[in-house]
């Protein structure tokens, strides 16, 4: 006997993602899901972002890593509420883990929650967490051809941060090729070219983010 099911495997995750959204909407908080491969500069980017919004927007950070709490300690050191999720081998965060983290964070007065997803250009793109904005980082050293190899991530992201642009003179990185490829996949994507090391380009991102958070 054949039974019709018609149920998506990600449906259960998406229900919890919506709960996360409702929880944050009730508090007037905005949430960013930050995704990139390991070493692209996620934590440095978060530190730059926290520095840029300091005194204007109250943030909290959820750190997803397979193991360790190096990142959340680094963020807590500058006085920002941070919580670490150790996925224990899993390659991405799921909405349930974020839900638990949100319930453990002191969200009083928090206007912006930044989630640092597990370093991976594949799986995190599949799992909605209840975010307002999907932001991805591609660092110059990874190469301009990555959108063609990891298309889902590039087509799903609202914002593409091209990091480590100070390295461009030392590489064959083709920015025009990157932009052309990404815009075909994702015409509405916002692209910011920055270097977290030198600080170049960071201000444009910060101004844009502040406007988005305040408009929400």
């Amino acid at each position, binding site marked *: 006997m*054949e039974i019709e*099911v018609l149920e*998506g495997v990600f449906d259960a995750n998406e229900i919890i993602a919506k709960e996360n959204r409702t929880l944050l909407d009730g508090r007037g908080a905005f949430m960013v899901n930050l995704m990139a491969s390991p070493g692209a500069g996620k934590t440095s980017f978060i530190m730059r972002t926290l520095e840029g919004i300091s005194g204007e927007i109250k943030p909290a950070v959820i750190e997803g890593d397979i193991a360790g709490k190096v990142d959340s300690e680094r963020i807590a050191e500058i006085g920002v509420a941070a919580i670490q999720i150790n996925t224990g081998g899993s390659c991405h965060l799921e909405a349930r883990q974020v839900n638990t983290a949100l319930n453990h964070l002191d969200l009083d007065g928090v206007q912006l929650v930044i989630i640092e997803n597990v370093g991976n250009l594949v799986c995190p793109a599949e799992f909605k967490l209840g975010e307002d904005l999907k932001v991805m980082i591609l660092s110059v050293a990874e190469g301009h051809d990555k959108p063609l190899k990891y298309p889902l991530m590039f087509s799903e992201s609202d914002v593409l941060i091209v990091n480590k642009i100070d390295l461009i003179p030392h590489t064959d990185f083709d920015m025009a090729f990157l932009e052309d490829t990404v815009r075909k996949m994702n015409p509405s994507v916002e692209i910011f070219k920055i270097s977290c090391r030198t600080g170049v380009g960071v201000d444009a991102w910060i101004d844009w983010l502040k406007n988005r958070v305040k408009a929400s």
Partner: protein
Amino acid sequence: MHEMSVTESMLGVVLRHAESNKATSVTRINIVLGEFSTVMPESVQFYFDIIGKDTIAEGAELNFRRTKLASRCKDCGKEFEVVEYDFTCTKCKGENTEIISGREFQVESIEID
């Protein structure tokens, strides 16, 4: 890693529907899997063989129906297959398009005894 957790979710969906229909065994699972999904059928099969053991779905045949990546233009209404990840409308060259297939990972139906 990824397929392990999604296979667990898929098995959960299958068992819930099988049990609510008082099945004694699941013989076949019909799955729709978009070509733009990051899930690999071979890996789902591999993990299913392990985690399906000792459940009523043990040994069920997994049948994957793959769907092509396709979009619809919100401006002119044209539906088109997306080639080489170029989402630009093939008719009006508009950029305001939405994916209509190719992202699915759905349990379409199950065959039970």
